[in-house]
């Protein structure tokens, strides 16, 4: 078991900076997820930890040992690849046994011990009956299990996974999420998992690092990144649909702080919010509101945003309503009982100003998170 630390890691591909001064500390036994859109550098970061890429700057530590210049074979990590990367010319048994056989002498294992461990891990993943088959004869889900077994059989210090569920169909993916998480907790292996799917990250991770353009935007628990996003990017990346962002101006009128937003102007009464804005001393801010924290009213009330219904997407248990406010689209989760027509004028009201997030428009950094 081991922790993983990245210090100021930089990786460039030509002129592109794929990983930009990344600092991370993944704790022993943690299920840690690197989350971000494609091209954000999350896979490169994972490959640097695996030793498949070498950083241009910075150091990598596994279990306190500097492994920056070590070959993958000397790092004692295991990796599950997006397309599983099973050895097509070997049977399932040979695939799983490969990591043990290749370093049999180093590990001091006998043939019988290898056999025992292969069967043990195959049993754990319910693939015992597949051991004689070749990968080409397996379904996607079965291949996935073999890839997991191959990564587990060695009892590695660190388990790396590069979007391992993305090639499975939707139903199986949800099942495997739960199973993977259970397996990881049961074995207690430090796990670093890369995905672009925020729902996957939220449901599995102990902690999430949200990445964008090679940089870490925030590291935190699923709860933290959801309710207290450190950056406007995090707020717009996480959540389904993600948080709505309104561009607003603030003006001071004596003691009062006046908020001017599209379709809305009022004094900020929430003390916490007023305090955050005053302390930052900024003029332009982004207001972030989660779709489930907005109410739709048919009649005006003080402190509401006037808008027009644009589209209604019924989802069964709820509906997503797109409302335009002076050209800005705001998505709202509404109960299915509410009947709305496109073009209808509605009034949006924040459920609670404590649940509104505020970001500095210039830097994107959070001035205040939401109180759940």
């Amino acid at each position, binding site marked *: 078991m081991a922790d993983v630390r990245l210090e100021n890691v930089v990786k460039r591909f030509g002129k592109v900076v794929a990983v930009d001064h990344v600092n991370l500390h993944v704790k022993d036994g943690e299920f840690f997820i690197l989350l971000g859109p494609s091209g954000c550098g999350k896979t490169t970061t994972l490959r640097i930890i695996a030793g498949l890429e070498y950083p241009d700057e910075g150091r990598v530590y596994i279990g306190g040992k500097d492994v920056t210049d070590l070959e993958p074979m000397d790092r004692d990590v295991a990796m599950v690849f997006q397309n599983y990367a099973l050895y097509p010319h070997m049977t399932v048994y040979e695939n799983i046994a490969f990591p043990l056989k290749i370093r049999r002498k180093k590990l001091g294992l006998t043939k019988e011990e290898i056999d025992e461990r292969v069967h043990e891990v195959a049993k754990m993943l319910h693939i015992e009956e597949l051991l004689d088959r070749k990968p080409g004869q397996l379904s996607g889900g079965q291949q996935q299990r073999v890839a997991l077994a191959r990564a587990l059989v060695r009892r590695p210090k660190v388990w*790396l996974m590069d979007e391992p569920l993305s090639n499975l169909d939707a139903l199986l993916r949800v099942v495997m999420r739960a199973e993977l998480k259970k397996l990881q907790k049961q074995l207690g292996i430090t796990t670093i998992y890369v995905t672009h799917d925020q729902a996957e990250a939220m449901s599995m991770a102990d902690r999430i690092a949200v990445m964008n353009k090679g940089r870490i935007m925030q590291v935190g628990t699923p709860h933290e990144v959801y309710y207290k996003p450190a950056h406007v990017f995090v707020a717009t990346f996480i959540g389904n649909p993600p948080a709505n962002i309104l561009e607003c101006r603030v003006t001071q009128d004596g003691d009062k702080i006046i908020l001017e937003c599209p379709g809305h102007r009022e004094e900020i009464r929430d003390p916490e919010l007023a305090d955050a804005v005053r302390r930052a001393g900024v003029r332009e801010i982004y207001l972030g509101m989660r779709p489930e924290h907005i109410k739709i009213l048919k009649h005006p009330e003080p402190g509401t945003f006037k808008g027009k219904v644009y589209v209604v997407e019924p989802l069964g248990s709820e509906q997503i309503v797109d409302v335009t406010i002076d050209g800005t689209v705001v998505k709202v989760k509404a109960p299915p009982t509410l009947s709305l027509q496109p073009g209808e004028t509605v009034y949006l009201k924040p459920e609670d100003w404590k649940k509104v997030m505020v970001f500095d428009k210039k830097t994107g950094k959070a001035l205040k998170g939401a109180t759940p």
Partner: protein
Amino acid sequence: MVRKSTIRAIIVNIVAWTIGFIWVLPFIGLFMTSVRPYSEVVLKGWWSIIGAHFTLKNYYEALFNPFYNLARGYMNSFIVAIPSTIIPVFVAALIAYAISRFSFPLKSYLFLTLVLIMAVPQQMSVIPLFFMLRDMHLLDTLQGLILVHSSWGIAWIAFLLKNYFDMLPREVEEAARVDGASDLQVFFKIVLPLSLPALASAAAIQFTWVWSDFFYALVFLISPKNYVVTQRIAFMKGQFYVDWGLLSAGSILAMLVPLILYAVLQKYFVRGMVGWTIKG
């Protein structure tokens, strides 16, 4: 009412089979001549089969008459062709993998050199090689010829295999490296087994070329006891009198080995030719 496309299909089939017949005709002629007494072939023509006599005398003569001794030639050809296939395929696989996967100084020049070597004619090497082999006491030996063939096979095989390695998915190799395999283990346990089709193509074609080679053998093998099959066939033809019975039997014997190989490994021949010339 017959559809236009049906008529077209019939014409295409007739034309195609006629072309196929023209192409195979020389082989039929050769075969007919080889299994009949030459006097009968000269008098009646090999194409007349009425009252034909069949005999294997020509084959026996070609194989065992001490003047021709194709049996000995067969042995020499095998002794030369088998190592001249294994050595360059293995050596070229190593260098092709390095070119495909590793970065090192002067790599692009190395690759360029390999491609240019493929265009160089055999004539460009034989004079210095003749003296080199003489000084190494390898002139007029099968070992010397093996060295030459092996070395000259490397360039084209490396080119073919590099194209193939470029198409292999990298993840499988990366998985092996993370699983604890060294670069050499990755090469031997993962890359070579996955490349068996390409290795088979390279080996089939290289073997055929070495077996079929005439020029190097002509220059480097001097004593008749060392002659390979192609040399013996070439010298079977008398200066003035041509015994086609004997020659055709000899020709068939000489091409039998590549033909059997081709019959067995046909798809590897074709894939190799295509993979070698058309990139990707």
